């Protein structure tokens, strides 16, 4: 029997362990008899597998992946990725077979022993290919995965100004510094899984569905998780393989992703094109918006890929009161790794489309971009034709223009970019929490898992506020499906909102229990007794918030962009912890700069991935970045604890402000991210 002997201290989420080097990441786990798994991956973007000898493959495990995690939809299913390639490979990096050995050196050696014959086929690499060429999956008539529309179609209004353009965000690898990884162990009919994840429940549901095993026979436990940014929210083929292997061999199995595997095989984000047409009056008032959104979804439906088109389309009027809008949106199959969520996941794309168009319209009319934006805002709440609900926008953004010192900045320099946005957090369907009070201590589990956001800090604060328990008596444990019956996950700017609300709800329940038992509530009574309460706290209403960014730049030799100023003005609701809020925003701003200037996953005409390292992928360095200016506005939400979302705000607002700043200095019309030095030198 192999078990992990971690005590209470090891299971608690404790960020002070990280400075000592005593964290508990998945690769730190060592179990007796544990074997290491390596995965053989497709070297072709598209090929028929003629023969395959050696290793574990689809002959052993013909399962298909379950659609779980962020954006997963019940409609998905026709085009779900197989755990191992079955008959064909459809992207470079697709798992073909797996091998197992005592250590990672030997399992890597064993990859050489697998023999595969491929017959290469013409790949569908780009969005244009996907529209032009035949379907990559036989049995389908074209490469359209899903097609949807938002708003109501309308006849082109009689408008003196009509502008139209096509805008694009390249794909980006999430690149958390810790790659993905899993350890599985099957003992006495129980599959125990330790994993670096944003959502233990997604992984559990996925394994149950993919392997056809009962929910009672799987326990998924989160290890310290070295960043996720969307990439660790759901199920991946390797998780099913490692679980199956531990059941088959009766030994614990470890798989740790390499960085090259991460670039090739972990679902990247973005990869979206928008064609937008704006109808406006000469005074700048917009009469209508029409659009087409196209998602480069990759070879299979990861869940978010079929959700994204409608989600991007829905947000395309931004914070503006545009009365007529209609957007057609589709996701297309290509022979690339399936697209997934990356910090923002549809929000930055929609904002890039509307904000670029606002700047272009301002240029067309020779108006100030801020004035044009404010002109198209309302003093009252507004529901867009596509169903986006926003509060009164104009008062907030007038404040933003003032606090970001936009007028002064634009007098001083040419290279100023300003962006306005509305953040749509993933509130639905709420979150779960469990609190156990025992031996004078309070132990907490959440349905979604911290991986650096500081959940432990707001958990302690809210429990102290609700139950007056001293913070040092409260411990937040890492995600564990053995301790929470159900749960969702950490993504979509949701945790402070939904996990916070769940904590408050459990506290209220416990308080009532104490009152029932003792007649009145006191922290002394609470700690002297024992309680164990779990709540699946449903939240289904939108809780959108506003934000604005300002950026200024210089363009140096060889088209190198230096970011001089990068400032934010965000409504974060009640900031549960100011330092954590600022830390989240600074980190997100770095990612926003990364997307704009350096980051991308690039494929050649044959569908070969030519981005081969984390540096090639453009993750920003310390010397690339400025100090950030963060202004937070605390307009409490209607929830008892007052929180709003914020984690993704910077990846929505920074790319648009920064692209405009570069456009203003360079005088070149910019239509895509990343903005490369080559483009600026042209």
């Amino acid at each position, binding site marked *: 029997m192999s078990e992990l002997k971690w005590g209470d201290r090891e299971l608690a989420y404790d*960020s*002070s*362990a*990280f*400075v*000592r*080097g*005593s*964290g508990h*990441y998945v*690769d*730190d786990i*060592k179990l007796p008899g544990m074997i290491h798994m390596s995965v053989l991956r497709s070297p072709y973007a598209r090929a028929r597998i003629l023969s395959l000898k050696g290793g574990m493959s689809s002959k052993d495990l013909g399962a298909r992946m379950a659609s779980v995690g962020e954006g997963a939809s019940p409609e998905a299913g026709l085009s779900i990725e197989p755990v191992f390639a079955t008959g064909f490979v459809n992207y470079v990096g697709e798992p073909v077979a797996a091998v197992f050995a005592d*250590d*990672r*050196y030997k399992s890597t050696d064993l990859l050489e022993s697998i023999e595969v014959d491929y017959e290469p086929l013409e790949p569908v690499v780009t969005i244009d290919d996907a529209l032009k060429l035949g379907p990559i999956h036989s049995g389908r008539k074209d490469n359209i995965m899903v097609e949807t529309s938002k708003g109501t179609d309308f006849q082109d209004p009689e408008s003196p100004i009509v502008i139209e353009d096509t805008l694009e965000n390249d794909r980006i690898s999430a*690149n*958390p*510094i*810790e*790659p993905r990884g899993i350890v599985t162990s099957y003992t006495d009919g129980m599959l125990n899984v330790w994993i670096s994840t944003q959502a233990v429940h997604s992984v559990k549901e996925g394994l149950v569905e993919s392997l056809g095993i009962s929910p009672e026979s799987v326990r998924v436990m989160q290890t*310290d*998780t*070295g*960043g996720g*940014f969307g990439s660790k929210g759901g199920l991946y083929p390797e998780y099913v393989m490692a679980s199956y292997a531990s059941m088959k061999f009766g030994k614990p199995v470890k798989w*740790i992703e*390499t*960085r*090259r595997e991460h670039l090739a095989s972990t679902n990247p984000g973005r990869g979206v094109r928008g064609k937008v047409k704006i109808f406006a009056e000469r005074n700048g008032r917009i009469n209508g918006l029409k659009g087409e959104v196209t998602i480069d979804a990759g070879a299979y439906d990861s869940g978010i890929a079929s959700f994204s088109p409608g989600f991007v389309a829905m947000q395309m009027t931004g914070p503006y009161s545009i009365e007529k809008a209609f957007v057609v949106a589709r996701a297309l199959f290509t022979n690339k790794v399936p697209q997934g969520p990356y910090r923002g996941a549809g929000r930055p794309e929609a904002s890039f489309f509307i904000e670029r168009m606002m700047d272009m319209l301002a240029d067309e009319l020779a108006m100030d971009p801020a004035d044009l934006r404010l002109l198209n805002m309302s003093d009252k709440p507004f529901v867009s034709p596509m169903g986006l609900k926003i509060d009164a926008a104009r008062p907030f953004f007038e404040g933003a223009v003032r606090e970001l010192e936009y007028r002064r900045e634009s007098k001083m320099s040419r290279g100023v970019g300003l962006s306005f946005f509305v953040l749509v957090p993933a509130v639905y369907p709420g979150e779960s929490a469990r609190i156990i009070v025992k031996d004078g201590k309070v132990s907490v589990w959440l349905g979604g898992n911290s*991986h*650096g*956001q*500081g959940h432990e800090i707001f958990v302690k604060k809210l429990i102290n506020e609700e139950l007056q328990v001293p913070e040092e008596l409260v411990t937040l444990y890492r995600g564990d499906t053995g301790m929470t019956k159900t749960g969702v996950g950490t993504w979509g700017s949701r945790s402070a909102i939904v996990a916070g609300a769940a904590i408050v709800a459990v506290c209220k329940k416990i308080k009532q229990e104490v009152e029932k038992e003792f007649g009145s509530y006191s922290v002394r009574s609470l700690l002297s007794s024992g309680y164990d309460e779990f709540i699946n706290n449903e939240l289904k209403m939108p809780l959108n918030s506003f934000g604005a960014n300002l950026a200024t730049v210089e363009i140096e030799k060889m088209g190198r962009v230096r970011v001089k100023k990068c400032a934010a003005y965000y409504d974060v609701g009640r900031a549960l912890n100011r*330092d*954590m809020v600022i*830390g989240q925003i*600074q*980190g*997100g*701003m*770095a*990612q926003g700069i990364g997307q704009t200037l350096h980051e991308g996953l690039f494929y050649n005409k044959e569908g070969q991935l030519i981005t*081969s*390292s*984390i*540096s090639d992928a453009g*993750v920003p*360095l*310390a*010397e690339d*970045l400025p*100090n*950030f200016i963060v202004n937070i506005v605390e307009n409490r939400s209607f929830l008892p604890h007052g929180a709003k979302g914020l984690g993704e705000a910077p990846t929505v607002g920074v790319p648009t402000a920064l692209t405009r700043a570069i456009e203003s200095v360079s005088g070149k019309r910019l239509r895509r991210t990343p903005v490369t030095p080559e483009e600026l030198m042209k």
Partner: protein
Amino acid sequence: MSTIKIRTKVNGKDVEAEVEPRTLLVHFLREELNLTGTHVGCDTSNCGACTVLIDGQAVKSCTVLAAQANGKEITTIEGLSRNGELHPLQKAFLEKHGLQCGYCTSGMILTSFWLLKKNKDPSEEEIRKNLSGNLCRCTGYQSIVESVKYAAQLMNEKEVEREMAVR
């Protein structure tokens, strides 16, 4: 596979071991010595999560064979605190929130340790330049730069105290 014998000093302790010639130092530290505070983040020597000190110099331990550490002195993150007391850099990273997910932290601290040994009062620009071999995906680096500055201040204060005590 044949093995070779190495002798090193790791965090002040003498270590003798038989290793395969191809064993990377980072895997030797993590898997043979259970010093799991040193992390692996990439396979191309870019990210710096595996940074350790070899004879006082910051080195990416994924790019060094264990055999090359023969006869050398290695310090990992586990060897930084003395008698349970955190090193000023460790204190500073905690206090100034120089970390979120924690995965790059060991490498950041050891590279900063080396920097502060060479330069007791580095400017912001010098800190950013010296940390450019260490990637962080969470913080945007600003809080890390503040942590290093604060650590420099703590270390200089400590030195002044020590000098005062000697007098």
